[in-house]
């Protein structure tokens, strides 16, 4: 997958219109969603393509980098 550093998404719920475009564009496996039909915000995304941020009609998705993938597999850069 991507060599990007994993990110944790944050959604500005005040602007979110629950349109689902972020989930529609998301290349993650099934289930990377929030209870509000957006991309997941409770666990890191290890793909970090950020397509969800660019498709969002109301520009309300942001992210912060996280140090390590949530899964136990850690790859070491040589």
């Amino acid at each position, binding site marked *: 997958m991507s060599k990007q550093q994993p990110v944790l998404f944050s959604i500005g719920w005040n602007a979110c219109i629950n349109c*689902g*475009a972020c989930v*529609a*564009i998301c290349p993650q496996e*099934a289930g990377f969603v929030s209870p509000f039909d957006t991309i997941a915000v409770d666990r890191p995304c290890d793909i970090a393509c950020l397509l969800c941020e660019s498709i*969002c*009609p*109301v520009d309300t998705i942001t992210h912060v980098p996280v140090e390590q993938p949530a899964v136990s597999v850690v790859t070491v850069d040589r």
Partner: protein
Amino acid sequence: MPPTDYDLIIVGAGPAGSTTARFAASAGLRVLLIDKRQELGAPIQCSGAISGHGLAAAGIPPDPEFIHEAIYGFAIYNDRGDRTVHDYRQLKGDEYGPGPGKKPLGYVVDRRRFDRYLMTQAERAGVDVWLKTEGLGYRPRPDGSCTVSLLRYNQPIELTTRVVVGADGLQSQVGKWAGLQTHIKITELAGCLQFIVDGVETEGLLEIVTGHEWAPGGYAWVFPKGHGYAEIGLGVIATMTDKPARWHLDKFITQSFFRDRFAGSRILEVQGGGVPLAAPLRTQFADNMILVGDAARHVNPITGGGLHTAVAGGKIAADFLVGHLGDGLPLQGGALEAYQRAWLGAMGDKMWKLYGIKTGIFHNMDIGERDRQLYATMSSYFSPTSEFKKI
């Protein structure tokens, strides 16, 4: 195959799922239709336009319960405001019009009421409908059937069925369960935003505004919404602009050739969604599973229209399943590819052709030329002589 709880479990009670359910149950199949929402149609992610023949072909009468406004034609604008009008009240005045003995060309529907109406018709045809029920996954079984895992008001439930129908929209999880390639390219998903407004006059036409200046990669629209309301919206392709759809919609409203017309508008609702301007999914089936509607990307790649294609696809899916299950044919090992062939023959091949036309326009790097091509294509698309008017 031993008995199963249902013949079909349909995930998603939008227009595609409810139409599939209605035709399947009418033909005697045992159908469960589930939706995770508490209220269908909402949040609205769609402009709500559908042709009269699209409704008729899917056995849906134009009931006042769900119709916002009748439509009689189209007006297509270029980026400067020049327009081509196809008003069927003039083009085919003996057939289309508001008077007695005449009919509208199409309708703008209220998606909340339309979706609920279609679900009600399915329920009356014998479908079991469960709201607040989410599909979590499915497993094909060695006996040829499959098990579906559901969550209903937080209660886990497992049911057996012969076929799962994924009608769960553009964000489809059902296709992902089966490992299908459902990922859509960022260049082919338009980020859309629309306002329902008061104070904007309309004339019974669907108005479509082309031009990179207003909607890079997509188009803008003004649709009549009934009761004097209108719908102003647009869709943009993220790779063709560094601004979100909301920025473009504000610009369209305040700076376009419609700025005086929109000056007194007041926003009543804000809606949005992702609209695929893409090809249909190449694979729309798996063991014990088929996809229909937005989940299969049964969406017109030129107009982004998905209602007609959803209900038409629902009927195709139901007719196929009734025959296939009735004949006791296998449901695994690629057997359901026959559904995809039926769909391609009925409407998919035309959609692939439209996708080719659309791709040809947007691969043009010269903005002026691209604008001219899109305007010309849209203008001819809605003309009475268009070869695509039934899509």
